[in-house]
């Protein structure tokens, strides 16, 4: 009797488990986890998609490095989100193991290729041909500046005249000195790393690695990197930098309070300014960057291989990143589309931003996006980049001279690359 009862309990438990496991999942019950970083401007569209398709999307947003670190950890552990952003600085690191991502060719993603800029598309394709992600925006570079502070310093405020002030980076530094001499109480730029070094570095054809060669490091000799460093050092030594690290709370506060007059502006930076400093509407305008050209950033949306909802995740990505939706994101937030068919349309060409004093942002960033060219970023791109940023930070904080910082940075890069 007793034995039977125990057996019965065990059986019913098994049956319950089996029934639970076999319960059909209704389409409405799909919940997608989406991990991203920073300001991508996709929230409104995702809300719209949820309403139209009866699914739920959990967005988890982290800091830039934290996001990629958490993603890597989750890929190793197998507890993954359904959709994950991968930024170009981390691209090569992730692409080295394409098997941890769903090959989007199984959903026919290759048909989307002609829609996007060639080099942006290529950033989502691994060497074995696996398509791991679809491109979001492009970060063509311009300069955002505060018209009120420029006026206070006796500088022109018309974007064309401002662009004419700094045809090259030396002229930019000179303009900064003029601005500083006027004693407005604000600094010229937020940080030498963010608004000078990164921009100059991103204007080159090579960064830290030789093109498409994950084994050859050229940061020590690449003239563009040397120039980026030297220009940033010149900006620090001229006292132009407010020395605030980007994406920190102080940076947000400084942006809102007008502690700096110029901010290097890849298109997505407009999203940050409008989000962090909404009260500064109408006080900004946009000029072209010294020496023009250059791209900073760019993200692919990927589907980790261990996702249970790969199809649903892909459907959402493909829907989110069509030209018309990228256009919508651009108009709302500033992140510029990676789909060239839009660039010459009146929607882009005639689009002006009220927040940026009516600047023709569509025309500005379309111009810059057309001029972009692919730049290879290697597997440890971000680790090297952080050391150069820290090196400049040590000069800004007065802890090291420029020469000392260059030497210590090279030593630190070697330590960081050690395996």
């Amino acid at each position, binding site marked *: 009797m007793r034995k039977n009862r125990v057996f019965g309990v065990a059986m019913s438990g098994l049956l319950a488990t089996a029934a639970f496991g076999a319960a059909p999942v209704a389409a409405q019950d799909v919940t997608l986890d989406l991990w991203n970083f920073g300001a991508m401007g996709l929230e409104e569209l995702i809300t719209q998609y949820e309403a139209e398709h009866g699914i739920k999307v959990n967005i988890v947003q982290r800091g830039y490095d934290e996001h990629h670190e958490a993603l890597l950890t989750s890929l190793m552990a197998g507890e993954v989100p359904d959709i994950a952003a991968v930024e170009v600085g981390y691209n090569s690191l992730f692409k080295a193991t394409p098997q941890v991502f769903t090959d989007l060719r199984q959903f026919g993603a290759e048909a989307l290729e002609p829609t996007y800029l060639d080099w942006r598309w290529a950033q989502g394709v691994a060497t074995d041909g696996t398509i791991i992600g679809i491109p979001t925006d492009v970060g063509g570079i311009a300069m955002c500046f505060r018209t009120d502070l420029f006026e206070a310093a006796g500088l022109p405020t018309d974007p064309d005249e401002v662009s004419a002030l700094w045809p090259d980076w030396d002229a930019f530094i000179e303009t900064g000195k003029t601005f500083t001499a006027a004693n407005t109480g604000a600094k010229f730029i937020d940080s030498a790393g963010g608004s000078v070094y990164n921009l100059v570095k991103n204007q080159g054809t090579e960064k830290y690695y030789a093109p498409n060669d994950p084994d050859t490091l050229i940061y020590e000799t690449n003239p563009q990197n040397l120039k980026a460093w030297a220009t940033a050092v010149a900006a620090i030594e001229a006292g132009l930098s407010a020395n605030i690290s980007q994406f920190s709370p102080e940076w947000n506060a400084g942006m809102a309070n007008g502690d700096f007059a110029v901010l290097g502006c890849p298109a997505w930076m407009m999203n940050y300014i409008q989000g962090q400093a909404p009260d500064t509407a109408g006080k900004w305008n946009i000029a072209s960057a010294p020496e023009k050209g250059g791209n900073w950033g760019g993200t692919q949306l990927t589907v980790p291989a261990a996702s249970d909802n790969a199809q649903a995740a892909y459907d959402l990505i493909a829907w989110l990143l069509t030209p018309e939706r990228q256009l919508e994101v651009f108009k709302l937030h500033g992140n510029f589309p990676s789909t060239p068919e839009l660039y010459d349309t009146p929607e882009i060409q005639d689009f002006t931003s009220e927040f940026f004093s009516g600047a023709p942002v569509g025309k500005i960033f379309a111009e810059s996006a057309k001029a972009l060219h692919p730049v290879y970023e290697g597997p440890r791109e971000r680790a090297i980049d952080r050391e150069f940023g820290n*090196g400049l930070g040590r000069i800004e*904080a007065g*802890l090291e001279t420029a020469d000392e910082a260059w030497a210590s940075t090279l030593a630190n890069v070697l330590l960081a690359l050690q395996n």
Partner: protein
Amino acid sequence: MATTSTPGGAAPRTSLWGRLDERIGGYAYIAPFFIVFGLFGLIPILFTAWVSLHQWGALSDPTFVSFDNYARLLADPRFWNAAFNTLSIWVISTVPQLILALFLAHVLNETLLRGKGIFRMAMLVPNITSVLAVGIVFSSIFGRDYGLMNFLLESLGLNRVDWQASQPSSHVAISTMVMWRWTGYNTLILLAAMQAIPRDLYEVAAMDGAGRLRQFFTVTVPQLRNTIIFVTIVSTIGGMQIFTEPLVFGGTQQAITGGAARQYQTLALFLYEQGFRNFQFGYASTIAWVLFIVILGFSVVNLLLTRRIARD
């Protein structure tokens, strides 16, 4: 029971269950602790030791490298820097903290003080506040441009300090967080010990003409020796592992390296950086083991000291 049984007699035979209970019952009762400790304490420690002998990167398989990671660590300037920072923050936070706790405990022990219960409870509030919240509040207090501390310094006619920028200033700021959090806790432990000191010692001292200050130094402090050592051990173990305070203090992407010059990167942050930023699990495990050995060393020294003092 055994005495009542006679050979060949009808002794009360304990059941199989009863005999099992006698033999292994005790182990069963203490098993939960050991199982939990094994799962969450011992196995990870041993696994970490195994990992520390391997090179193991992100999304790849471990390869055995023997003690290479240990050799590399001892030659790594970042390790020595982190070790110095940890020690420095520990000293700057522990020494003033214990002096302050001793003083506060003494005040709370005074018979004259009213509302003792409230004060004693208030002492623990910082300790039960989330360390993350403490960190966020303190890092805005020590903010360079909009921080309260710089506002105060300026209104006193002093210069602003960029707290995060240099080694000494960042260590002071971080130590302040640690002190704010742990002083009350240590005060209560010292207070409990103070209350256990026999009153007649003070009476004798008073009869010998010792003033209050003299009584404090010749009666209270020596009587508290063991407790002070206990408190020191506990704060050593905590201090060696300090992590959240410097992490939150840094606030941004620079926090994990402890600033641009690693000026406030502690050992635990260095471990985290190698493990979860650079994804070098072997190397990170090596740091963990070295940290473990250092803490073990400190604890043994402390234990020997306590024993010797107890014997005196």
